[in-house]
């Protein structure tokens, strides 16, 4: 059976499996007994580019079940995983809804916006902080992965969220944005506006809920000081047309 390797961001872990990405995603979300649900975000990893994989352990553990079924998961690492994975090993990104529908995103060049606006970022690794920032995604990546600063991380994985009119005017209405504690978000944006020397303002220290996929703006980003990898999120038209089954599930919110 083929072996696959995945870097999961929910939570941070490295996993080996016999399941192909879409089946793995479904399994991550709903398990096998079908009494669980949960969103998942993971990357497929090219094992040939990771030189520290414990192959003896993998060969021993990644074997089919007694009934011949493919092994669903073998956890290989759960601590500082991203820090130790080379960025060139990252293949496609997969977003899984909490009922198990999977959307695959490929890397692509990032299209820089010329307009200077405020951005809202949701980090996943190393922590789940939500931050408002004047910096563009590549600038934000460089800023937070500068290890000469005390507040930094060797690598970073985050997504940009929509702000709509709030990106330019913090007094504007939230309208369709389902963010918790909207008044606090507005306060943070106003503060950012009044403090030009500050590039970032923490909005939520530790965001514990599932990501609302419909709030994703341009896409997901992973990288370090030298490397910036972008995974663009499909347009509304593509979501309605090509990926409708996934999109429908993404729009449902279990409470």
């Amino acid at each position, binding site marked *: 059976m083929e072996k696959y390797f995945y870097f999961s961001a929910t939570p941070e872990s490295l996993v080996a499996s016999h399941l192909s990405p879409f089946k793995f995603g*479904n399994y991550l979300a709903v398990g096998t007994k079908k009494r669980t649900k949960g969103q998942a975000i993971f990357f497929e990893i090219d094992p040939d580019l990771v030189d520290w994989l414990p192959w003896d352990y993998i060969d021993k553990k990644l074997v089919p079940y007694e009934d011949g079924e493919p092994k669903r998961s073998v956890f290989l690492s759960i601590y500082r995983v991203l820090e130790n994975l080379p960025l060139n090993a990252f293949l496609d990104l997969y977003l899984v809804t909490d009922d*198990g529908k999977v959307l695959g995103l490929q890397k692509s060049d990032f299209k820089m916006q010329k307009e200077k606006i405020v951005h809202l970022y949701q980090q996943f690794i190393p922590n789940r902080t939500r931050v408002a920032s004047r910096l563009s995604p590549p600038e934000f990546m460089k800023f937070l992965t500068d290890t000469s600063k005390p507040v930094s991380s060797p690598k970073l994985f985050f997504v940009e969220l929509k702000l709509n009119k709030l990106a330019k005017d913090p007094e504007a209405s939230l309208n369709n944005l*389902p963010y918790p504690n909207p008044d606090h978000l507005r306060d943070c944006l106003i503060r950012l506006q009044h403090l030009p020397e500050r590039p970032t303002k923490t909005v939520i220290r530790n965001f514990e809920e599932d990501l609302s996929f*419909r709030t994703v703006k341009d896409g997901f980003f992973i990288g370090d000081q030298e490397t910036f990898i972008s995974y663009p999120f499909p347009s509304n038209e593509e979501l309605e047309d090509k990926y*409708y089954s996934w999109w429908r599930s993404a729009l449902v*919110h*279990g409470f």
Partner: protein
Amino acid sequence: MINNLFWLVPVSAVLALSFAFFFFRQIMKEDEGTELMKKIAQHVRKGAMAYLKQQYKVVGLFFLILTGVFSILAYWFHLQNPWVPFAFLTGGFFSALAGFFGMKTATFASARTANAARNSLSHALRVAFRSGAVMGLVVVGLGLLDISAWFYVLNFVYPAAEDTHNLMIITTTMLTFGMGASAQALFARVGGGIFTKAADVGADLVGKVEAGIPEDDPRNPATIADNVGDNVGDVAGMGADLYESYCGSILATAALGAAAFIDNTTVQFKAVLTPMLIAAVGIILSILGIYLVRTKENATQRDLLKSLSRGVNTSSVLIVFASFGILKLLGIDNWLGILGAIVTGLLVGIVIGKSTEFFTSAEYRPTQKIAESSDTGAATVIISGLGTGMISTFVPVIAVVVGIMLAYLAGAGGDMANMKMGLYGIGIAAVGMLSTLGITLATDAYGPIADNAGGNAEMSGLGPEVRKRTDALDSLGNTTAATGKGFAIGSAALTALALLASYIEELKMGIARLLQTASSYMFPDGFEINDKSQLLNIDLSEFMNYFQVHLMNPIVLVGIFIGAMMAFLFCGLTMSAVGRAAGKMVAEVRRQFKEIPGILEGKAEPEYARCVAISTKGAQLEMILPSTLAIIVPVLVGLIFGVPGAIGLLVGGLGAGFVLAVFMANSGGAWDNAKKYIESGKMGGKGSDAHKAAVIGDTVGDPFKDTSGPSLNILIKLMSMITIVMAGVTVAFTLL
């Protein structure tokens, strides 16, 4: 001339049924779409028919028992007209038949509508609306056919021309077939309402909340039951409800007409024929209105609403002119006043509809305020929704109050003391309101068809353009459904009032039957009569005095309290029933998720039929207690408290029931639309804290607007019908 005019009634009925059949054939010629679409539609069809079969078994048993009771009362104790057992059976049979045809058409139409949406919105509207029109025309056609058949047969046995008493006997006998229709409507509405909400709530609780599965997802085992419920509750249930109002209003008015002109057979005949002729012409104009519902290829939501309104409004306006013609042709006394009463009925229907729209549509402030209250959590959403619902009773109640007074004055020719004609005016107002039922029911019944079409489109994976079109139709259907519910409540109130008045005539018939075997009859206040001809000379107010029906009689107040309590008890029982039945559905869906491998990956097909069976069984079991109470309590009140208690019961039931029904329907509708308002992108949109709170409000409101609220319409009328049928027993035996 008069006899010839009667034939318009059965001819119109046959015309309605012919057009219903023609539309049905047109719909069946439409392509049902892909294999998957056909498969899904077949599942829903099977589930719906399985439910109907089960329901008819339970209802059949009830009918058997009640027919036995009526037969004993009629043939053993001679306390009942001998035709009553047959009238009861035919009323129930035709009501069931109307529900059967309507639902059969709806289940054939949903996939065809979804497939038509692949071409254009206008094509989809045509298919969906014509399918709704089948329901509408079958209801009015069968209703009027039954009425005209009974009138013809009874006229043979009791020739109207020979004795003014004969028309009294004919019309009061015909009134009893209304009880058959009421009983069948009760089971259809209550059972259907419990089914639909148990399936809907159950599917949502496990599907969306627990498993995160979207609406109408084929992986959800309860999704087919949810779609079946749309047909069972909103098509068959609504059809039976309005069939009963339609027949009840015509029959009650005919009975009042016979009583009002007891001195003259010619005028009496005209008065009896008038409501039937209005209904007959209403059928023709409804058919015309149905043909006017069409729209251009690239229609917007607004265009759709305009086209539906064009059909309904044209029929409503033309019925006024047609009624003018009929009344002038008949040369009935005070024909202008009667026309005024008809116009009053139509206007009351419009006002109630508009009021419902104002209080429940997200276009207006009341619903927007509920949405805004979601900012502070679920509790404030509930409070706000309850408050809005209660306030919303103001306009329909005032409309009905003003309508009653105007109709009374119009019918009485401005003379408040002319009670018989005044009450006739109220009855005719109800007939006026329901005269274009053929098309108004079509606009109502098309909603669940559009809803199912949307479900079919989702489950079949049809493209975004198709889904947009079915969403537009569905959204419009929700608007028309809310207005339709308001209309159903308003017509129920007027019909119940007309039935209350015709109860007096039934009491007279009951006393007349007693005098066939007894030498005299003594009223509760001591007044005695020896001959049934003396009954003719007693006017309504005197009759009420003899039975001591006044507010100083504590028995009347006792009856009022019991009647008011019945409305709340009935609501509580039906709402609790939804909770219990939904719980069983949730358990089954969870079991299937656990025990059927591959279900959430879409590899294994869920056991849809099991969920349908659970909802069916739940609905049948749970409907027994509230339905039995609705039948037994009026009988017991009549036996224990006599006529004053029975009238008190009807007054209390009507007063509390009508207002409670409006409140529940409007609260439920407002909560639903408040949630949709937020989902459209306000207050943070889907997934926001406000949305979560609004979803709770919507879930609470579901049984309000789809189960308990609509069931009250039937309760109000059924209690009147039972009291009417038991009038003979009430005058013969009373404990107090």
